[in-house]
């Protein structure tokens, strides 16, 4: 095995171009588990810890540009305001020690359907994009809806590295919910992210751990968007009817394609998704209603 230690981004891209099978490592919270247990023996490790620009974030034109290697602990501390859904999800990742090391770039690179970052990234809207780059072809933006291809497969080419993820600053309430056996150290049995987007009057969802890839509940999004529009609820902030909440939960449940595995059964996952969808919608809509009333 080789250990590659680029000192900067250009060097990292050069290293990846020369050795496309090199496995990028940043926090190591996934990569080292696989090596420790001999699940995976890559030809080389490409250490990104010295590429300091990956650990930076900026906000430009209402969009957070989140470096791939900003650890979850810093997302919670520094970005709870602009990225509330992602920060909530970050808070459920592993333990404090894991959150000090683990990164959204790692979640995207691993592309596990259980990654906690995925539901809030999907829910944050269709403008969310993963910025990747290669030495040969430069930078490109992959829309989040085109990023996840299959179980642990993403749209990255072998010579590409994840630079950052572009996420619009929240313009409405966002929530995240996750099922597991305890509050810490849990790989999601199922997870759900919800975001309200009052500015363009859309609704964003993200389902985790209940399909081969993270996915959005498209029909649930469209149903709720329609109800909010027809009943002029964006303007009034009036309470949602219980039948609306119920129907939303059913549509989220129907969007999942889970399997039975060691963490839970497909039926249980479907059930939890309908519950999480109803809860997160109630929380988000209550917050939105308060905002409307306090602005009035």
């Amino acid at each position: 095995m080789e250990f590659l230690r680029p000192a900067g981004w250009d060097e990292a891209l050069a290293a990846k171009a020369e050795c496309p099978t090199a496995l990028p490592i940043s926090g190591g919270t996934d990569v080292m588990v696989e090596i420790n247990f001999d699940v995976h023996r890559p030809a080389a490790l490409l250490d990104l810890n010295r590429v300091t620009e990956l650990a930076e974030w900026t906000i430009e034109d209402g969009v957070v540009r989140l470096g791939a290697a900003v650890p979850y602990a810093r997302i919670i501390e520094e970005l709870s305001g602009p990225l509330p859904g992602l920060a909530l999800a970050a808070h459920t990742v592993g333990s404090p020690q894991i959150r000090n090391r683990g990164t959204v770039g790692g979640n995207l690179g691993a592309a596990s359907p259980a990654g906690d970052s995925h539901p809030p990234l999907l829910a944050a809207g269709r403008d969310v994009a993963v910025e990747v780059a290669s030495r040969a072809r430069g930078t490109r933006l992959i829309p989040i809806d085109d990023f996840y291809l299959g179980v642990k497969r993403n749209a990255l080419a072998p010579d590409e590295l994840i630079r950052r993820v572009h996420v619009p600053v929240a313009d409405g309430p966002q929530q995240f919910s996750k099922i597991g056996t305890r509050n810490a150290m849990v790989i999601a049995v199922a997870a759900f992210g919800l975001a309200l987007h009052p500015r363009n009057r859309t609704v964003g969802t993200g389902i985790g751990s209940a399909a081969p890839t993270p996915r959005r509940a498209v029909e649930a999004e469209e149903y709720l968007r329609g109800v909010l529009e027809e009943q002029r609820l964006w303007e009034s902030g009036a309470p949602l009817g219980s039948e609306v909440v119920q129907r939303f939960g059913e549509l989220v449940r129907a969007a999942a394609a889970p399997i039975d595995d060691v963490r839970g059964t497909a039926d249980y996952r479907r059930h939890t998704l309908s519950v999480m969808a109803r809860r997160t919608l109630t929380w988000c809509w209550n917050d939105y209603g308060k905002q409307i009333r306090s602005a009035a």
Partner: protein
Amino acid sequence: MRVAFTANGRPVEADDVWEGESLLYVLRERVGLPGSKNACEQGECGSCTVYLDGVPVCACLVAAGQVQDREVRTVEGLADPVSGDVGVVQQAFLDAGAVQCGFCTPGLLVQTHALLARDPRPGDTDIREALSGNLCRCTGYEKIMDAVRLASARVSAQGRGQA
């Protein structure tokens, strides 16, 4: 490969390190610091918690090559480097009887040390949250809670964040 870093304020060097090796292995087997314990090797148990550049991490999940030129502080580094006297957190664990088999203790000491450095007076919820990644399979969590509260009281009484 060769890996050189600072461990508890002292420069150390290890040769013939395998590229997939963890920091934990290097600490325990190559540079004579076996205080950090090896249990789960997947970041679940926290027994190998060490400071890396001042941030608590699981040493089993850090690749050895990643610590080149960086600073590591292990449980051995919590005692006074000159007198060898144990620190406030360590003394509190002794006084509270928060040690049973002892295997989880080094990780709990480092994680508690980090908690009190950040927040000298944590509430019980904060303590449980901070220690949520450290498993004690003797399940002696109540004594551990007592120890952290005791350390917190002593640190606060001293009026400084020196745990």
